[in-house]
């Protein structure tokens, strides 16, 4: 099995992925897989998807050379793929448009979604409004508190936001609740899953819709500076922005692929959200991958400053890329991410999402040890307006 030709027909990426769901959902996943097989070969469907990305999202997103920050760091040149400039302010919209078009194709009038930071919830509420569908977003009660501006945005867009108070009240619990809704309303409802995880075909489908990020980079980098970057760096929670920029680069062995997980208080403290760096394989939310779990196989609570990375699992293709050695995975602590957040604000006039700040922080670690003609391409997956309350709170400022 070669990297880049996966998953197999049962959704396996080596030992990872698969379909680990209750019987009630099997038929719905089967229907989705069949519909997507037809849609991806349907030129009209793909043309509409590309049209929407261009005219509604504003693609292609530019690549920006962060010159002042690179000079300050004194090594490699850092380039940013500006997914923060997309409509709704993050990469999430690429996937929600694709899935909403599939939902419409399947005649579903109601969509549901889970959300952590609220970016996927906003992107889902947005496309539901755009295509005239009912939208229900499940969000951990803890995240509802942390991300109140996004909660209001979803409501403005006409969505119903349901706070989830079970378990750790974060993204994983929102996902549990969305799955329960789907099991109950499977005939009328399309589940817009937000990350490259969950049961097959979701990891493949989300990757395919997000791959537009990397495909654009493949063209833009040579145009901008005559060659591909030395490394591509992206943050990894569930892993959708990372797989989106990595996937088209898998066949370019000269380009290192580096995924950055949320190190929270530090890997050594156990208070983090870095399953690839410090977890073990297991089964959760319909797929097998690396997980944060205890010796009894219970999922343990994760810790990250960034709600969007606060997830105990990771997409199965990342687990496979890690084991195969094609991609490397590292962790960045809350403090390091905060430093990068402030640096990008001050040196480049860009407020990055706290999620993306993890990728930026790793670039900042690598750059000083590299030559000035080397190039790091960072996926700036979202903008940080949604995070200003969190950042202000950490800085002891009341807004």
């Amino acid at each position, binding site marked *: 099995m070669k990297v880049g030709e996966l998953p197999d027909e049962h959704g396996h990426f080596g030992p990872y992925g698969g379909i680990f769901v*209750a019987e009630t959902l099997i038929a719905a996943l089967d229907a989705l897989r069949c519909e997507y097989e037809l849609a991806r070969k349907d030129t009209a469907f793909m043309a509409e998807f590309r049209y929407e990305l261009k005219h509604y999202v504003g693609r292609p997103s530019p690549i920006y050379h962060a010159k002042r920050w690179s000079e300050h760091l004194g090594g490699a040149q850092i380039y940013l793929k500006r997914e923060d400039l997309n409509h709704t302010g993050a990469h999430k919209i690429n996937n929600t448009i694709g899935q909403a078009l599939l939902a419409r194709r399947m005649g579903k009038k109601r969509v549901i979604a889970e959300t952590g930071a609220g970016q996927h919830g906003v992107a889902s509420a947005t496309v539901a409004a755009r295509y005239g569908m009912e939208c229900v977003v499940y969000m951990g009660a803890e995240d509802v508190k942390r991300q109140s501006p996004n909660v209001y945005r979803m409501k403005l867009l006409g969505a119903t936001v349901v706070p989830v108070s079970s378990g750790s009240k974060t993204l994983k619990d929102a996902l549990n609740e969305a799955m329960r809704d789907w*099991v109950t309303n499977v005939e009328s409802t399309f589940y817009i899953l937000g990350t490259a995880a969950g049961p097959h075909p979701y990891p493949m489908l989300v990757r395919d819709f997000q791959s537009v990020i990397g495909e654009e980079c493949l063209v833009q980098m040579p145009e901008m500076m005559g060659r591909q970057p030395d490394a591509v760096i992206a943050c990894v929670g569930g892993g959708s922005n990372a797989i989106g920029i990595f996937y088209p680069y898998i066949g370019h062995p000269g380009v290192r692929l580096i995924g950055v997980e949320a190190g929270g208080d530090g890997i050594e403290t156990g208070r983090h959200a870095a399953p690839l760096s410090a977890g073990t394989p297991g089964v*959760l939310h319909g797929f097998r991958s690396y997980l944060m779990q205890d010796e009894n*196989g*219970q999922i343990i609570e994760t810790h990250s400053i960034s709600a969007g990375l606060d997830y105990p699992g990771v997409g199965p293709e990342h687990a496979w890329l890690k084991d195969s050695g094609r991609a490397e995975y590292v962790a960045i602590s809350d403090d390091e991410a905060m430093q990068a957040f402030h640096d990008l604000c001050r040196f480049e006039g860009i407020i990055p999402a706290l999620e993306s700040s993890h990728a930026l922080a790793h670039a900042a670690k690598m750059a000083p040890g590299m030559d000035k003609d080397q190039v790091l391409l960072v996926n700036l997956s979202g903008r940080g307006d949604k995070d200003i309350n969190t950042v202000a709170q950490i800085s002891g400022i009341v807004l």
Partner: protein
Amino acid sequence: MSRIGNTFRALKAQEKTALIPFITAGDPDPELTVPILHALVAAGADIIEMGVPFSDPMADGPTIQRASERALHYGVGLKDVLAMVAEFRGTNTTTPIVLMGYANPIERMGYAAFAAQAAAAGVDGVLTVDIPPEECIGLADALAAYSIDMIFLLSPTTPASRIKLVAQRASGFVYYVSLKGVTGSANLDLDEVASHIPVIRERCGMPVGVGFGIRDAATAHSIAQFADAVVIGSRIVQEIESSPREQLVDNLSRFVRSIRVAMDTK
């Protein structure tokens, strides 16, 4: 033949339907679990389903989620559940025990180790909600080596073509989920369920249990007319949840006995 097979054969000879109550192991606390198991048998249970607590019970409604949380509060894990089964087997060697839960605790222990320890404890069947037949090979082989039955769910959304696949992998009995939704949901359509059971029994060639949404004696009576087993979960967990600790076993016994009587009434 397995304890599960023997049980169904004996019931068939008596023209009775199996009553399968569900409890979550460790709910409301670990000390009460084995006494509850014995009380369920005394009240008329033929087979017992024991839920293995899991942190993320995706297919369960709020009632069974809370049962899992109560058990997890005491740190009850798969090893503890097996120890409870072994203790129960100290004085009961006939009533089959089926473990019901999610894949990850078993994945974590390892399929072979789990099968060996489950057999040693006296477990008769395993139903893993999130391991469908397509993903079951490793676990199925491990369980088969110890003659532990692997039980699967069938749902109203399972197409006819798939029932055969499930039947190939299943042993002991199959469990028909009588409604779309999570455990404990409302609105059971009896006629719809009744129409499915003969077809499933015919295709699978083994007993068919019906569960999800059976809340009272009247419904249990109706289901018992066409199913081989009636599974009651959330309603029993509710009884555990709402009873003071000292009255819990009595309340539970009274409720299960009322179901037994209703099921045995022709």
